């Protein structure tokens, strides 16, 4: 035993942590392996670009103006992109929609909406999933059985159909929040499962037993020892599910259960494209919002796959 008091040991350890953080990151096998995976780097670059677009859109574009109709202002409606028609190439870069709104700016703002509501959905289900998973792993027995098997049954439902059923329960006035709440509930079980798996592995390690033996109370053990060790698998699972959450949010908007009419969300723009441009060949109404959506989702899938491969094999099993 050292002669230090417990407090000083803690402080010293924290100090080492802080100084060594950058060095440790650089030496981390997870990061170096991830960065050597070319596809993962492509995915990361895509996501960074979309985030930049989202921030730009939030700061410099006015959502009210993007939502309201421009009919009767002299701007042509359903005008093809400038470079594909007779007007100067830089006008209407992505064309205009049925209400004469500029599709390019609407797509940019759509990035902000997708990232914002994607983050809320994934973030909330992560928090709920972490709570349920840690509780199930820590208390075990009947609690574990009932909580986790319930999660499994929820996981067995097809996500979109379950989300539709849940959307029907919530009042229409909630608008896009209805879709967010429904999808949060759909995604929570995935996080609960990962966290429980990871938490069990941590709890198997002896030092938690030792901590409990030393008299640390339940919440302290969970917060100090179990959670930090679950961070990596949680991050991987969040990344993998972020893309899916964005698709599902767009799907609900597309079906008319998400964003309110006029909102520049990608799913709603695609729905407008199907209603206003399919039979008359106005391809730009559908093409560009879908392109943004697909590229964003591909970015998250590539990064997520790479992260999973770079993960400690012991933890990889928990992430599906």
């Amino acid at each position, binding site marked *: 035993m050292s002669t230090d008091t417990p407090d000083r040991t803690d402080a010293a350890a924290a100090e080492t942590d802080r100084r060594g953080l950058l060095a440790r990151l650089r030496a981390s096998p997870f990061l170096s392996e991830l960065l050597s995976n070319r596809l993962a780097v492509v995915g990361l670059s895509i996501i960074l670009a979309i985030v930049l677009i989202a921030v730009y859109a939030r700061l410099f574009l006015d959502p009210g103006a993007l939502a309201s109709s421009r009919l009767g202002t002299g701007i042509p409606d359903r005008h093809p992109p400038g470079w594909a028609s007779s007007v100067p190439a830089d006008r209407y870069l992505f064309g205009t929609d049925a209400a004469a709104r500029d599709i390019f700016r609407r797509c940019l703002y759509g990035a902000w909406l997708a990232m914002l509501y994607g983050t809320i959905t994934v973030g909330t289900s992560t928090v709920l999933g972490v709570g349920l998973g840690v509780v199930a792993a820590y208390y075990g027995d009947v609690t574990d059985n009932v909580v986790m098997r319930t999660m499994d049954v929820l996981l*067995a*439902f*097809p*996500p*979109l*159909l379950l989300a*539709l*059923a849940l*959307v*029907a*329960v*919530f*009042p229409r006035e909630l608008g896009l929040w209805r879709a967010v709440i429904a999808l949060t509930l759909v995604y929570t079980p995935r996080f609960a499962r990962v966290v429980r798996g990871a938490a069990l592995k941590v709890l198997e390690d002896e030092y938690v037993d030792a901590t409990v033996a030393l008299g640390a109370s339940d919440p302290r053990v969970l917060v100090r020892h179990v959670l930090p060790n679950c961070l990596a698998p949680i991050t991987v699972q969040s990344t993998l599910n972020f*893309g899916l959450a964005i*698709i599902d949010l*767009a*799907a609900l908007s*597309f*079906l*008319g*259960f998400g964003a309110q009419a006029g909102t520049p969300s990608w*799913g709603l723009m*695609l*729905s407008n*494209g*199907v209603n206003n*441009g*399919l*039979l*008359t*060949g106005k*391809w730009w109404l*559908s*093409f560009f919002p*879908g*392109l943004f*959506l*697909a590229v964003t*989702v*591909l970015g998250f*899938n*590539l990064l997520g*796959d790479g992260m999973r491969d770079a993960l400690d094999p012991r933890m990889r099993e928990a992430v599906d």
Partner: protein
Amino acid sequence: MVSTRFLLKRALLLVPVLFGVATLVFAILHLAPGDPARVIVGQRASQAQVEEVRRQLGLDQPLWRQYLQFLWDAARFDFGQSYSIKKGGTVRSVLIDRLPVTIELALYGQVAGIFIGIPLGIVSAVRQDSLTDHLTRIGALTGISVPIFWSGPLLILLFATYLDVFPTSGRIDSTLFLPDHWTLFGTELPLTGMVTVDTLLLGNVEAFLSAVHHLFLPALVIGIYSTALISRMMRSSMLEVVRQDYIRTARAKGQGAKITLMKHGFRNALIPVVTVIGIQFGTLLGGAVLTETVFGINGMGLTIVTAIGDSDYPVVQGTVLTFALLFTLVNLLVDVTYSYLDPRIQQ
């Protein structure tokens, strides 16, 4: 042989599945905000009218009595009348009209997925890390990343609107009319409601070709997704099996690598894939909801979306129970296939 006892046991599970789904649907619709009576009479009707309709529908009864009544109705697949989708028509008639449409779409999508996905997965596994493997895997990842409500419109725009090789919507040429029954040895029999089947039963080749022509794009869209899933699954399953010992043993005995793979590997690799096909059928139904919306096909998927949007509760109930029934039957079918592949399963 598949034991009848095993199958009977599985078939009996239909009862608790449907009871569970019916109870869930009942609970969800009673927890959902909104008054069905108000939906029927409309916003401008008086409170007295609402009360009248509530009494007619039995909504003034204690909830437990409504629950028992609902279970009894559900057991007979009687959900009363549609509020808005087919006003005045029974839910059952709506379901009879639209179920075959979705079955047909899902069937072709699933068949396409199986017949393209399994060979792709095998080739990908046998030639691991070859160009073919990489292309297949990237293709599969793209197939999963690209949402149906984007690939669908793009395919319509390219093949229907611009190239004009496929129709944009509908199930059969509008100039063709099908009778409502067919004749076998002089007896009149009802048609199935699946156009590709009906046209064959009627012996009308021109109509059959037209039906296939109309179904091609939607089935392709839904097929891309299931192809991507199945080829991924088949690849990893095949690789897993190849790694196992008995293949190595067989190879050591001197058989050629390819024959070994085919003989031992394929059958075993197929088992998890078949089971996944059953479990994934639900996802396929989710895909059908989007595909039907994109192509304007009047099947179960479009029905449930419209019904939720219009608060047509009886139709929602009927559709959800039919989906559950369909899912259970498909899994029963998977069980049969599966017990042929894996004899150990017949306890």
